[in-house]
């Protein structure tokens, strides 16, 4: 079977969950081959990629690959597309993953599909568009299919692969080194999972009432091992940092469980969370549109309901 390239997402050498999901997806469609861009591939990371089915691990270990914005990763993948003729290239549909996919598409004269939530035979991708209102199946017509897949699109399943490492000799063009990363600033976010990757997301909205009260949302999130999100009303009010905004102009999340507390469920917000598998809503207003989406809803004051829920979750663990 043809190889399917999977661009590895990692932070400080740790392979992200979405990469394991992509390897799982790739295994159903071909032979998964992981692509590690930059230095820092550890034995632990290699073992992790092999555990989830990577037969090959292509490595371009030069620091130049990660010290410049996006373009080197696209050049690396383009070279592998030319040398290895893979059946497809999969990347995570993160903001940067999509940019890599976009540049790669131009370089290889190939079609690109972004924000796939499923991928089947013939690389036909499922997408959920217009804020979740329309389900679309799309496919690439020209070149090597390049598909950016959203985190949480499939459950990662370990099936051992050979994990054979192969160093790629890559000479970057000057154009690829035009935007230099001179400093990386890591903002402390504690032990919580990343918002777009998290299996569970607990979000607060206008009903939370203040920045201090977000501790109620964080308490439930921590009890569940979840990420914290916020509606635009809450981030606009300055109660929670903007990068946690879920919605049309913020992050799109697709977790197993989404808990919306004090969020009315305006279309702007729904666009960012509608593909969650299970939705729980807590809101004072029985008419709030979020209840139309909810698998389970509690009409009540979140300041009473959420702490009680947190206590119950902690008790039952």
């Amino acid at each position, binding site marked *: 079977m043809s190889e399917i390239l999977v661009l590895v997402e990692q932070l400080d050498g740790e392979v992200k969950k979405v990469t394991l999901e992509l390897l799982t997806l790739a295994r159903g469609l071909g032979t998964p081959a992981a692509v590690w861009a930059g230095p820092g591939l550890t034995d632990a990371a290699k073992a992790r990629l092999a555990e989830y089915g990577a037969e090959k691990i292509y490595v371009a270990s030069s620091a130049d690959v990660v010290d410049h914005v996006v373009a080197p990763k696209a050049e690396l993948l383009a070279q592998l597309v030319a040398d290895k003729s893979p059946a497809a290239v999969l990347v995570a549909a993160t903001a940067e993953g999509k*940019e890599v996919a*976009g540049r790669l598409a131009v370089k290889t004269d190939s079609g*690109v599909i*972004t924000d796939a939530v499923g991928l089947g035979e013939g690389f036909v991708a499922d997408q959920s568009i217009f804020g979740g209102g329309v389900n*679309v199946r799309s496919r690439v017509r020209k070149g090597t299919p390049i598909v950016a897949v959203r985190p949480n699109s499939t459950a990662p399943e370990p099936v051992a692969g050979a994990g054979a490492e192969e160093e790629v000799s890559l000479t970057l063009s000057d154009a690829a080194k035009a935007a230099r990363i001179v400093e*990386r600033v890591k903002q402390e976010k504690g032990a919580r999972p990343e918002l777009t990757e998290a299996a569970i997301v607990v979000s607060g909205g206008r009903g939370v009432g203040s920045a201090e009260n977000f501790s109620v949302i964080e308490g439930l999130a921590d009890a569940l091992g979840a990420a914290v999100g916020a509606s635009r009303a809450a981030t606009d009010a300055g109660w929670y940092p903007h990068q946690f905004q879920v919605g049309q102009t913020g992050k799109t999340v697709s977790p197993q469980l989404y808990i919306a507390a004090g969020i009315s469920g305006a279309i702007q917000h729904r666009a960012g969370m509608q593909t969650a598998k299970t*939705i729980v809503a807590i809101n004072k207003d029985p008419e709030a549109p979020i209840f139309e989406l909810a698998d389970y809803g*509690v009409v009540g004051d979140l300041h*009473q309901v959420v702490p009680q829920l947190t206590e119950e979750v902690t008790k039952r663990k």
Partner: protein
Amino acid sequence: MNIVVCVKQVPDTATERKLRSDDKTLDRDAVDGVVNELDEYAVEEALKLKEAHGGEVTVLSMGPGKATETIRKALAMGADKAVHLSDDALHGSDALSTSYAMAQALKKIGFDLVILGSESTDARTGVLAAMLAERLGTPQLTLANKVEVDGSSIAVQRLTDYGFDRVEATLPAVVSVVEKINEPRYPSFKGIMAAKKKPVETLGIADAEIAADQVGLDAAWSEVVDFAAAPPRAAGTIVKDEGDGGAKAADFLASKKFI
């Protein structure tokens, strides 16, 4: 500094958006068009850079005839002139075609800096700025929440999953901006009146040296196989909190094996 700011007319996100049954493209006639929200931040950033460093701001928009409303809004905010890339042959263009057509138009206009919103609210691919940088061979300074220009040097803060990167490059460059980088100004009455007199040049594909076989629905590198309205979610259980709402929600989570 010669700044080109790219704006897109999109359907109002508050309205129901549909695909056309015949060619599976967005039905733009059925809905009100508005300026893509993220592009308003791009326009504001362009105007602020012009105010600080001098130069000229040109609006570039690709879209059907009615996109002129969007162009006028950007002009009313304070841009100097506009180029409307409009041709029936462009209908149905995917991201690859669009980036090609826009890159051709940008080469014709000339620029020191191209600024875009980081994505459109309709297609939401988030790839256009990266594709333009690739096609134009200029540095990609995308997902910026801060932009600083000093002579021919440019630095941005690029949002990342872990925080941000500081990125430096030399002009010309392509920048995309994220929400909240600034506070977009409202057009003043004077601005709206002045916008009516500002020059808007319409370019067809031949004017911008765009090859007809590289754009439009037939040239698309990807295609919609089929689509359907998302099935409504099954009605859930809604309970009223009578002092036990949290416990009941916990029962539900337990039944779904989340706890």
